C-alpha cells in the first residue's frame, strides 16, 4: 500500500538533517555577505530557520504519518492539492539540481579540472539514485557514519589551523549596515536551514511522529552551531580575504601547515562536500521522486528514479551558466524565490487545515 515501508528513528532524523544542512554549506560559506560578522548572520539566520522548521513541523504534527503530497490532497482536495504538490516537487527537484550544480562546479575548479562536469554529475547521481531506491532507512543509517566523520574532520581542521587564527579579525562586531546584516541572515535562514522543509516528505516515516519536531530542531540547531564555529574560524584565519574567496573553507584548510609536514589537507574539505552533498541531493531527490509517485498514484516510485535523475543532471548542467550567476542567484534571487515553498506552502496549508477544522491524524499511532 504505502510507497515507503521504512521507518527511521528520531535520532536518525536529526543526524540526517545535519547532513542535509551541511550539504552545500560545507563549501559555500553561508553569511559570507556579512564579512567578518558572518557568524552573527548565521546565528540570526538560525533563529529564523528554527521558525521555518516550527511551521513545517506544525504541519507534520497535524497530519502524522502523511507526506506533504498526501496532506495537500487532504486539505485542498485532489486537483488543487496535486497542483500545489507539483509546485513543491518542482522546488525539491530544482534544489537537488542546484546542489548538483554547486557540487560539480567546486569539483571542477578545485579537484578535477580535466574531468567533464557531466561525468562527475552522472557518478554522484548514480550513487544518489541507488540510495533513493533503497529507501529512506538506508540513507538515514549511512548518515550517522558520514556526519560523524564530517564533524570530526571539521574539528580536526579547526585544531590544526589554530596557530593561524587572529581573533582580532572578528572585530569590530556589527560592522555592516543593519539592513545588509538582516538580508544576509535571511539568506542564511533560507539556505541552508530553510531547505530542511524538504523533510516534509520524510517526517512521515519517523517511528515516533510526536518526536519529529524536537528531532528537526536538534538537527537544525547542531548544524547551525557547527556552521557558526566554521564561520568564526574562517574569518579569524582569512580576515578580509574571507569575503573574497569563493570557497573560504577550502582555502582555510589550505593554510594548515604543521611543521611543513602536515600540509595540503584541504582535500578533507572536499571529502566533506562529497559526502554531505550526497545527503542533500538524495533527500531532495527522494522527496521529488516519492512525491511524484504519490501525485500520480503509482504503485512504486522506483521506475521514475532514473528518469528524474537524468532530468536533474540536465537541469544542473544548464540552469546556471557560470559561478558568478550561481552566486548572484544564491545571494539575491534564492532568498525570495524559496519563500513560497519554505514558508508560504506549509503555513497556508496549516491555516487552511485549521480553518476547515480538519481533524488531527495519526495521533494514536505509535
Amino acid at each position: 500500500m504505502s510507497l515507503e515501508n521504512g521507518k527511521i528513528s528520531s535520532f536518525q532524523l536529526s543526524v540526517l538533517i545535519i547532513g542535509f544542512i551541511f550539504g552545500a554549506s560545507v563549501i559555500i560559506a553561508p553569511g559570507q555577505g556579512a564579512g567578518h560578522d558572518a557568524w552573527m548572520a548565521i546565528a540570526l539566520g538560525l533563529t529564523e530557520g528554527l521558525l521555518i522548521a516550527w511551521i513545517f513541523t506544525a504541519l507534520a504534527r497535524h497530519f502524522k504519518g502523511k507526506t506533504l503530497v498526501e496532506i495537500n490532497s487532504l486539505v485542498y482536495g485532489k486537483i488543487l492539492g496535486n497542483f500545489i504538490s507539483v509546485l513543491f516537487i518542482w522546488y525539491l527537484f530544482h534544489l537537488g539540481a542546484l546542489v548538483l550544480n554547486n557540487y560539480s562546479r567546486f569539483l571542477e575548479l578545485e579537484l578535477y579540472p580535466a574531468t567533464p562536469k557531466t561525468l562527475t554529475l552522472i557518478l554522484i547521481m548514480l550513487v544518489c539514485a541507488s540510495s533513493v531506491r533503497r529507501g529512506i532507512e538506508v540513507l538515514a543509517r549511512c548518515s550517522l557514519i558520514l556526519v560523524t566523520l564530517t564533524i570530526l574532520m571539521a574539528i580536526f581542521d579547526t585544531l590544526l589551523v589554530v596557530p593561524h587564527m587572529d581573533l582580532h579579525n572578528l572585530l569590530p562586531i556589527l560592522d555592516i549596515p543593519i539592513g545588509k546584516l538582516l538580508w544576509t541572515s535571511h539568506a542564511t535562514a533560507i539556505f541552508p536551514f530553510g531547505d530542511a522543509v524538504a523533510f516534509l516528505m520524510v517526517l512521515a516515516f519517523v517511528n515516533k511522529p510526536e518526536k519529529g519536531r524536537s528531532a528537526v530542531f536538534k538537527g537544525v540547531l547542531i548544524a547551525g552551531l557547527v556552521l557558526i564555529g566554521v564561520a568564526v574560524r574562517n574569518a579569524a584565519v582569512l580576515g578580509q580575504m574571507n569575503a573574497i574567496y569563493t570557497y573560504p573553507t577550502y582555502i582555510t584548510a589550505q593554510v594548515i601547515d604543521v611543521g611543513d609536514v602536515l600540509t595540503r589537507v584541504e582535500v578533507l574539505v572536499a571529502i566533506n562536500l562529497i559526502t554531505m552533498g550526497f545527503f542533500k541531493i538524495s533527500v531532495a531527490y527522494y522527496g521529488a521522486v516519492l512525491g511524484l509517485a504519490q501525485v500520480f498514484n503509482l504503485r512504486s516510485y522506483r521506475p521514475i528514479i532514473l528518469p528524474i535523475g537524468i532530468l536533474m543532471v540536465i537541469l544542473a548542467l544548464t540552469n546556471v551558466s557560470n559561478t558568478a550567476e550561481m552566486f548572484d542567484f544564491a545571494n539575491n534571487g534564492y532568498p525570495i524565490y524559496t519563500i513560497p515553498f519554505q514558508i508560504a506552502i506549509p503555513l497556508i496549508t496549516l491555516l487552511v487545515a485549521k480553518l476547515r477544522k480538519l481533524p488531527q491524524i495519526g495521533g494514536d499511532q505509535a
Partner: protein
Amino acid sequence: MKGKQGFVLILLIIIPVFISGCWDSIELNKLSIISGLGWDVDADTGQVTLTFQSIIPSETKGAAGSSGDGGQKRGNPLHTIQLDSSTGSSAYDALNRYSQHSSRRTFYQHTQLYILGRSAAEQGIYPFLDSIARNPINRPNVLMVVSEKKARDILSIQDGMESIQAMGMAAEIKLSAEYSQYPVVTYLEFAQRLLSETTAPLAPMVGIIEQAGPEGVRVKKTRINGTAVFKGDKMIGHLNEEESRGLLWAINKIKKGFVIIPGANLEIVTAKSKIIPELQDEKIKITIAIDEESNLLEYDGHREISSDLLQDLEKGQAREIERQVMAAVEKSQALNADVFGFGDTVHRKYKKEWPVLKARWEDIYPYIEVVVKVKTHVNEIGEINKALMRD
C-alpha cells in the same frame, strides 16, 4: 533474478571503463615543477616578464648523492634548477608563451616564492595578485618577496647549501623571521593587508651581495636587507634593518632574537606587544605596550652582577627597543604608510567615528602621537654570577 545479475555484470564491466583513475595523469618527468616565480614589468612598454625557476627532479637526486665532490659542481651552479623567462602583455600571456616553448607542463603546487622585481612593485602588482588568487592551483601560503633589482637576477643566483635556490631562500626568510629580523609574509597576509582600508602591505626585500669565494672568485649571494612597504599595490619605500625590527616589536611578531645594548647582549625569551589606540577630541594617540623577557648572553662590564645591574640592563634594553620602534614609526609616518595597522585598531575600537577618520586617514597618519611603553625583565644570567675580571 537472472536479468538482475546480468545487469550487475554489465555495470561491473562498464563502470571501471569510466572511473578508472589517472587517464590524464602526467608523470614526473613530463612536469616542470616551478619552485619560484618572478615578476618583472618593463617600465617603458609595460610588458610583463615572468621568470620560472623549475626543479629538475633527476638532478636533485644526483646532487644529493654526489655531495662529497662539491668542488666539481661549483663550475655549474644551476645544476638542479632551470631558469627560463618569457615576456607577454599580461601574466597569463607570458605564461602561455612560456608553456608554448617549454618541453614540459608547468606545475605550481610546490612553488615556494613569488619574487616581485622592484620596478614592477613600484608600478603596482595588482594584476599579478589577481592572477594568483584567481587560479586554484596557487596556494595561499606562498611567500612574497621583493627583489632589490630584477626578480630574474635573484632567481638566477645559486646561494648556499640548498640545491634548489627558491627553497633555500624561503628557508632563509623563515629563519630571519624566527630571529625576528624581517617579517615573513605569505600571499594571504599580503592580500589581507591590501584589502584593509588603511594598513600597508609589506614584503621582505632581497638584495644581492658579492663575497670573496674560493680561488679568488667573487661569489654572488642573496641577502634579505629590508622590508618593502606598499601603499595599495604599489611599493613606495622600504624599512632598513633597525626599522624592520622596530616594526616587528610593534606588531607582535618577535619570537627569538637578540637585543644589543652597550656592554651587553641579551637573548629574547618571550615578547608580547599590544597596540592601544585612544581617541581624544578627534586626536588619535597610539600606545604601543611591549612586554619583553630576556636572558643575559654576554656582558663585558666589570661590575658584579647584582639586581641593580640587571635593572640597569632592563632599562637599557627598554630604551633600545623604544628607539627601534620609534625609528620604524618615524619612517612609516614619513612614508605615510600605516605598516602597523594603527587604522585597523582604531577601526576596531571606535567603530562609529571610523568612517570620518578613514576618509582623512592620509592627513591623520603622519601626525599621530605614538607612545612606546616597554617593560623588560632579565630572567637568567648564565653559568657565572660574577664578573670574570676585577675592577
